């Protein structure tokens, strides 16, 4: 929630009249008339607009006379994706990167990064500010759940219209209201972890950290929050968390995906739990002593 239909039809006043003017996968026009929309946005027709990026940004200098990603042409002149990002970012009231690729580069920037791809945060920089003074907002995940997108975009709309505060962001520009907790900390299987029950093979109901789950080092609300209408969740369904919300995805330390995370991390968290148990037992003992 809110659903896509709620957003598009403007179900309630504070989020009404949101206008999706350009999205290659859903818009009615094609070819030149589609590109005219971007051109008009560049000239200010749609101010104030939010620039939402999906997909990584390649290094076009590495493409020589050719190109890695083209979006539109005019009289034989080809436009690259980078051209549009750079010209639209200048006027954008806010810039939001959606997904692993757009935020931090995602799979295309995975080793050996054949196209020199990177995300919007690196492209515009951590100090970049929109015309409304907002930094780049990142909604990571491969892909992010629909709710993460609508809730973050919704929060920005509410903020711009004065109904809510601008969402608090972490060091990787992720909204804390979504990415403030480790996957492990909201995982329905975390209880097995603290009891020391680890799945040894797929299909068992226990904690899957030993099968490669990166929930201990990845900030993500999916295990408890699910993917669609609160259904699903990766470790919830016995699948190892890939760490797709982290900037390093899909490389080290998140892959190989079936390799358990660094032993040190596991040891530290296990020691914390043992200490926690001892403190708890100790405090019970003290209470008992007073009686």
């Amino acid at each position, binding site marked *: 929630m809110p*659903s896509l*239909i709620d957003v*598009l*039809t403007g179900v309630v006043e504070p989020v009404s*009249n949101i206008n*999706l003017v350009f999205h*290659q*996968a*859903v818009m*009615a026009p*094609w*070819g030149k008339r*589609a590109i005219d*929309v*971007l051109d008009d946005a560049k000239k200010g027709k*749609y101010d*104030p*607009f*939010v620039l*939402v*990026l*999906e997909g990584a940004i*390649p290094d076009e200098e590495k493409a*020589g*006379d*050719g*190109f*890695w*990603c*083209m*979006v539109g*042409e005019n009289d034989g002149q*080809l436009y690259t994706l980078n051209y549009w990002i750079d010209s639209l970012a200048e006027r954008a009231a806010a810039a939001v990167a*959606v997904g692993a*690729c757009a935020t931090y580069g995602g*799979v295309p920037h*995975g080793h050996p990064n*054949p196209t020199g*791809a990177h995300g919007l945060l690196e492209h515009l920089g951590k100090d970049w500010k929109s015309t409304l003074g907002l930094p780049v907002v990142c909604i990571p995940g491969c892909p992010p759940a629909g709710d993460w997108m609508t809730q973050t*975009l919704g929060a920005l*709309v509410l903020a*711009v219209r004065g109904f809510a505060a601008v969402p608090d962001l972490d060091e990787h520009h992720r909204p804390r209201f979504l990415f403030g907790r480790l996957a492990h900390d909201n995982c329905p299987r975390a209880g097995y972890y603290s009891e020391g029950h680890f799945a040894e093979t*797929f*299909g068992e109901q226990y904690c899957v950290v030993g099968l490669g789950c990166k929930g201990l080092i990845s900030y993500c609300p999916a295990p408890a929050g*699910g*993917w*669609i209408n609160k*259904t699903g*969740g*990766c470790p919830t*369904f*016995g*699948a190892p968390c*890939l760490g797709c919300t982290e900037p390093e995805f*899909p490389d080290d330390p998140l*892959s*190989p*995906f*079936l*390799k358990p995370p660094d032993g040190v991390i596991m040891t530290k968290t296990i020691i914390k739990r043992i200490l926690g148990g001892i403190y708890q037992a100790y405090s019970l003992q003290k209470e008992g002593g007073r009686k």
Partner: protein
Amino acid sequence: MSTSKTIFIEPMTRIEGHLGVKADIDVERRVVVDAHSTGVMFRGFEKIMEGRDPPDAIWISQRICGVCPTPHAIASAEALDMALNTSPPPMAILLRNLADAFEIIYDHTLHWFQLSGPDYSAAIVSERNPSWMREAEDFSTEYRDIHGFSTVGEIMREMTPLEGKLWIESLNYQRIAKECLVMVAGKYPHLATVVPGGITVSTTIGRAQEMLFRFLELVPWVKKMVFIAEDVFRFLQEKGYEKVGVRKANLISYGAGENPEIYDAKYENMDEWGIAREVTPGIVIDGKLLTNRLTEIHLGVQEYVTHSFYEEWDKRDVEKDPLGNEVPPKHPWNKDTRPKPEKMDWDSRYSWVTAPRWVSKGKVHVVEAGPISRMWTTAASKKVEGSTGSSLRFTLPKTNIAGLSEELNREMELEWRIPDSVNVVERLRARIYYLAYMTNIAFGEIIKVLEYLKKGKIQVFNEFERPKWSLGVGLTEAGRGALGHWIVVRDGKIHRYQVVTPSNFNASPRDGEGNRGPYEEALIDTPITEEGDAANWDGVDVVRTIRSMDPCLACGVTVYKGNSVTRRVIGG
């Protein structure tokens, strides 16, 4: 005054990914005389997978596409089942099949209402074919009892993006289909649970019910959708639209939906388990079925890069397949992806898409992938129940959903017949019937899941190895058609990983022999129905032709705006 007009459409919107199409039109004769199709984005997935741990391919390769990750997961998992010497237990096979069927239900709904459908909605028809819109308002429907609309004009209005009831309603059903999918996949898009040797979670009687009862909500909707489409097709045929986007019936299908008791992931048995699929593999050349054997079908796949931005490769690591058959140098097991960006030149290199062809006995065939291909091979082969050699018959189950008409709740028999020609209308029709066929398959699979649960056969995973050297191939049907993954494992790591997608076949440029790709072929001689002055033609017949093959090339930029009414802008 010149009588020719060139339209270069880039971006081709309402598709997945970045595609451009150039069409040269003879204005006086009102036909397309030449065409070029170009993929305008490169990411390098195949290079990124080299050197990684083999199982990682399942998760990475799915990220090729956000619309069809399930078939990528399945193709990759089957390639790995084979290469890593394992085979999933029956329950895992059933759950993989179900994920696939649910994906098709959402995917083909998306295509009919959001991607292709708007071209037949009032928004675009009244602008580009205004005389049609007037006729459609008086064109009575034949299936009013089922869908409730009296005229095709009414349907077209309800298909208008953002405003139309059908457009909005369809989003809701897509969500339900994805919820069913998540019951198996844990996550969607990009399934979390598929692993070599099976899947990471079994189902329970609780989860199976959650799946079943969500699924049943979809059944009447599918029935309604089939007959809405049939009425629109009747109108399009009245307007002669079966002459648009015609190409020869040269088709490829890998089939899909493994039989849980027969699939063993062994290359040596691939022809046997391939033929036992719910959707039959096959090659059709000039309307005739040539083979159903998966080994022969996949060994015929060869990729040309003569008109694409790549260098030729010279290494040949795989000379023979595990059965001793010759593996040609241009086969994906031998292909090395060597990108070389260049200036676009229509006479030389003009696309990031390669040109895969099906080569048999030295002859190069340009083959089309898609629902029409797999419906054709399934109907022609008589390998599944309901296949008659010229048609495919199946049933959609009875439901008892309160508030719905008897017409929508009753059991419904459907029959898809092999058409006389491959064209825009028949491609769209085949897609709608494939959606219905997959609905029938999904129902059967859920019942089978209950049977296996009852027998206590809930195991979902068998251990795999990481061999020093091995080969794997995974072949299935994505929404858009035949999808293949090929892997070569060396020293326990991915040595080579190659993917040939259906849009790779369909959107391909010219090949080494100068043959056009399927989009290009389909555009040649396509009549122009667009009304008004030629100077203002936007190429609606061109985009309808291309979208009938549901291109999938992947990525995008999005802009939201703050304070006017959405509907007007997106409507045109």
